[in-house]
């Protein structure tokens, strides 16, 4: 196993290099084949690793990355259940999205096409480093690397200044989180002298609770940035500026779940820091609700999905916060399926609509795009949590755990789920049902997407439907939760620490039933309301306007942080630097020049004046000589 582990990230890296360096000479076809092929290779390898894992030895060291007095950080990979699971998600979904992109990006010129695939490959590489790294530093490398690729891909259409702005915003907000991550790494390094997972988790008992809490909180700050949690979530909706497959891969399926992976990986730390867990749960829950409310009033197809992603990520954090690590990972997986599907579906729609993303101008697309329609619907059902679609199982697991923790979590979570169902079906209805509300010319061009795009849709749809069966709750069949068993070694430390308290089966059935009923009601209501479409000019009022403008959070950040920072920087540049420090420096020079002009007047040319000064200075000499002791005392005092 150790021999081939490094091949997994190597393939995407090769793809990146070939596509990146050869972008001038490669044909589009070749680019696509290479780009997707390398990911497929990685996928196959991942599958192979998957089969090896239960027997494998875990950590594979490649070389010493940093080795200095005091600590050493190897460049090594850790292959265990958790990472292999993520490997599969990343390479699997990654491959599908690459395939999809091959068709979606057809309109680009060859070199930009190659650039796109290069970036995408680089992203997969970084993501693989993130999940495969055996210590926090390697994870951090991937962590920053995916941020970079996200930046590059959001700003892929670099001519558009807004896209660049969005890309920059994403990178900078991520960096804020990264700082937290870095601080946590330093604290771990400081306290334990190592950043290797195994050693850190083994040495955890030597740490005080305060330390663990600090470490976990700081790590969570990193997760906030990467996984778009309050307050660092605003970049993710803006990140929709990138090509849609990118949104599917990076901003739905993989990168944004890095925070969940990280916490799941460090589960033992979090379990030992209940305070942090509470914080994680509350922030997750708040994000889930908050983003869901915004999604209710969005009219951009991708923005809705983006807020939905933020909201779903919030659920995952809720799961982590209440100790349902498996549930969270489970939700990561199912969410990867259906959210990727939704994005790809949206991409298909956008492709057909010639880059029109406003859902108010769509409608009745099911007539023109049957495959997209069906798959999209399945995904909507999955995310809404209708049994037996995958989303039901994962969300239910989280909510159940939340209920066990505190019913308030549960009820708020359910409220979010209802909102999810509402805005998803609002989106679905406005897009696929009703009448077409765009121009005729556009209607004329509507078409189903090519096979390269629909095949991934279909595959993902299948996964979205059946993916949930990986984790059938105990209430349906005892010991049928395959995922829990599979991941048990990873979370063993945590499960040992907490006493699980299960709900009674009746209670669980009841909850499931009631919630499902509510969701179905909400769906019907949404479909009914929006069948007619909504007017473009319709002026929202009150809370609606607030939601439409995303609670004015961007404006708030701008007013509270960005603008003051800029004016402060301007103040530093123009006042402190120029007139302050440089003024002092130049002032010394000016003072000398001034002194020179004044002092040369003493040189009056008059002999009598000269002699007068000489005589007076001699008198002064005598006076000094008389009082030398006093003067010495004075000088000694001075120095």
């Amino acid at each position, binding site marked *: 196993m150790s021999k081939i582990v490094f091949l997994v990230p190597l393939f995407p890296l090769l793809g990146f290099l070939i596509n990146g360096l050869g972008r001038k000479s490669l044909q589009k076809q070749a680019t696509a084949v290479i780009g997707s092929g390398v990911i497929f290779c990685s996928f196959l390898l991942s599958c192979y690793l998957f089969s090896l894992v239960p027997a494998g030895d875990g950590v594979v060291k490649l*070389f*010493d*990355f*940093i*080795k*200095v*007095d*005091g*600590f050493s950080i190897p460049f090594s990979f850790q292959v265990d259940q958790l990472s292999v699971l993520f490997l599969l998600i990343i390479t699997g979904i990654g491959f599908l999205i690459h395939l999809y992109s091959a068709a979606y990006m057809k309109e680009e010129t060859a*070199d930009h096409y190659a650039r796109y695939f290069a970036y995408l490959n680089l992203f997969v590489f970084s993501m693989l480093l993130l999940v495969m790294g055996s210590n926090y*530093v390697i994870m*951090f*490398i991937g*962590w*920053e*690397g995916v941020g*970079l690729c996200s*930046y*590059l891909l959001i*700003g892929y259409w*670099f*001519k*558009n*200044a807004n896209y*660049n*702005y969005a890309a*920059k915003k994403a*990178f*900078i907000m991520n*960096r*804020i989180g*990264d*700082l937290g991550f*870095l*601080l946590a790494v*330093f*604290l771990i*390094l*400081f306290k334990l002298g190592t950043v290797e997972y195994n050693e850190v988790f083994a040495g955890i008992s030597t740490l005080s609770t305060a330390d663990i809490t600090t470490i976990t909180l700081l790590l969570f700050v990193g997760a906030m940035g990467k996984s778009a949690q309050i307050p660092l979530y605003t970049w993710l909706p803006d990140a929709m500026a990138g090509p849609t497959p990118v949104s599917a891969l990076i901003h739905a399926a993989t990168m944004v779940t890095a925070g969940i992976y990280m916490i799941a990986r460090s589960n033992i730390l979090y379990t030992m820091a209940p305070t942090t867990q509470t914080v994680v749960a509350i922030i997750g829950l708040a994000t889930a609700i908050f983003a869901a409310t915004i999604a209710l009033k969005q009219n951009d197809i991708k923005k809705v999905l983006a807020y939905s992603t933020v909201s779903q990520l919030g659920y995952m954090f809720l799961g982590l916060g209440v100790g349902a690590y498996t549930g969270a990972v489970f939700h990561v997986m199912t969410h990867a399926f259906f959210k990727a599907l939704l994005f790809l579906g949206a991409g298909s729609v956008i492709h057909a609509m010639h880059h029109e993303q406003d859902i108010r101008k769509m409608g009745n697309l099911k007539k023109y795009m049957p495959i997209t329609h069906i798959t999209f619907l399945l995904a909507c059902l999955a995310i809404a949590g209708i049994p037996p679609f995958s989303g039901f199982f994962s969300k239910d697991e989280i909510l159940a755990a939340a209920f066990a923790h505190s019913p308030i979590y549960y009820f708020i979570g359910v409220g979010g789920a209802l909102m999810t169902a509402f805005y998803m079906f609002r989106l679905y209805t406005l897009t696929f049902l009703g009448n077409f509300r765009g121009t005729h010319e556009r209607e004329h061009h509507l078409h189903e997407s090519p096979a390269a795009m629909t095949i991934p849709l279909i595959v993902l749809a299948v996964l979205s439907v059946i993916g949930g069966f990986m984790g059938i709750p105990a209430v349906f069949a005892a010991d049928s939760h395959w995922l829990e068993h599979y991941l048990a070694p990873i979370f063993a430390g945590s499960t040992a620490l907490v006493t699980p308290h299960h709900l009674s089966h009746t209670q669980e059935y009841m909850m499931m039933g009631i919630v499902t009923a509510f969701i179905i009601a909400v769906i019907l209501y949404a479909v009914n309301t929006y069948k007619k479409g909504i007017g473009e000019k319709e002026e929202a009022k009150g809370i609606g306007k607030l939601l439409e403008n995303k609670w004015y959070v961007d404006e708030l950040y701008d007013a509270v942080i960005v603008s003051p*920072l*800029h004016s*402060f*920087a*301007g103040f*530093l*540049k123009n006042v*402190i*630097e120029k007139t302050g*420090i*440089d003024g002092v*420096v*130049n002032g010394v*020079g000016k003072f000398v020049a001034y002194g020179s002009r004044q002092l040369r007047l003493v040189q009056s040319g008059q002999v009598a004046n000269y002699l007068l000064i000489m005589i007076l200075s001699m008198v002064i000499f005598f006076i000094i000589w008389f009082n030398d002791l006093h003067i010495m005392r004075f000088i000694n005092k001075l120095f």
Partner: protein
Amino acid sequence: MLVLLLLLIPLITGLGLFAIKNEQQTKTIALLSATATTVVALLLVFNKATIIYDTPWLQSLGARFTLKADGMAKILCLLTAISYPLIFVAVYQRSYKNSASFYGLMLLTQVGLMGVFLAADALLFYFFWELALIPVYFLCSIWGGEKRIAITFKFFIYTFIGSLLMLIGLLYVYFQTVDHSFAWESFKAVSLGGKEQAAVFALMFIAFAIKMPIFPFHTWQPDAYEQSPTAVTMVLSAVMVKMGIYAILRWLIPIVPMASAQHAHMVIVLSVIGMIYASLIAIKQDDIKRLIAYSSIAHIGLMSAAMFTNNAAATTGVMIQMFNHGINVLGLWIIAEVIEQQLGTRKLSELGGLAQKAPAMAILLVILSLANVALPLTNAFVGEFLMFNGLFQYNIWIMAIAGTSIILAAVYTLNMVQKVIYGELGSASVNATDISGHVKVVLIAIVLMILAFGVFPQHLIELVK
């Protein structure tokens, strides 16, 4: 003998160049000399042992001509050696009037720089310290920008004051040595009292602080970088500012350890203020050269803070970061030079959209910028990681504040990237073409180094150990 070659090759060619009239010949000879020096430096680096060259010089003064190439000296010599051919190739197409003098002075500067890094004798060190400065004064004043004379003058006098104060400090220590010798070992063996250490520290630190520069002694730097011919700016910012850092590591902390520890807090706080301060100002810069200058101040601030944490790993970080920062900033200056040469402006507001016109440059700029923000797997990451780690162990809050600079670095660097290469074409970039072949070669070499030392930093770490 090998170390002596590092000085002799540039010295002889540098002096010889003044006699040559033909511009093409000048360039070729300069480039050959720089390459030869690089080869020697590489030989030196691959030689694991500490190499010493020692010959009597001023015996009555207790000064000897002692050169010592240990790890830290080697890495900086390597930086000096490598940066020269890169610079020469990068400005190969540019025609400087009186090019023989230009290249001659450049090579003489190299002698000074090498000498500073190699000298193991305080007086010799001081000599080279000044020797590195004088040619730069002429280079900037003759070939610089519009306001060159006044600006360079300010720079010169500022650093000159510093170096004279340093001389006093060195003298002071010299008279306390047991054997009245300027040798580094004798200096190190001196044990001064608390008050004396404080005095020596103050005297020498100011010199180094001005050179590096540390806030608030930095105001000469953006002006000087802006006004100097870019080839000189590259030397200044890639290599010369390292003199200050190197000097602190070699000549300040070991000699007055007590005072260094006592004042560490002040220095670190100053440095951190400087980091944030320079980063914030960089955000507001519209001139690409000034932006890089302020960014450099911020990076140097981190190094100076890390040096004083009294943490072995952080010191290692500083050493390799000196090298890496030199390489990175060199690349950025080359890009700035290309832009200014080609488009006649350095204003970010007039640029834009160069990714369409000059894709190769755009890619290289992005990579260099990433190195500038110390993204992992670029060379700068390792150094910054080690330095931040040291700072963290020194004081978590200071580190947290200093850490915001990595956010701010992202802000101004990406600002620059965005305004230069992305967006619609700017008023000045309409006529842009992509970078020419040899500049590309240079930049690719730099990028390869960035990546190589980013992925395998351990080689550098081994070197400085």
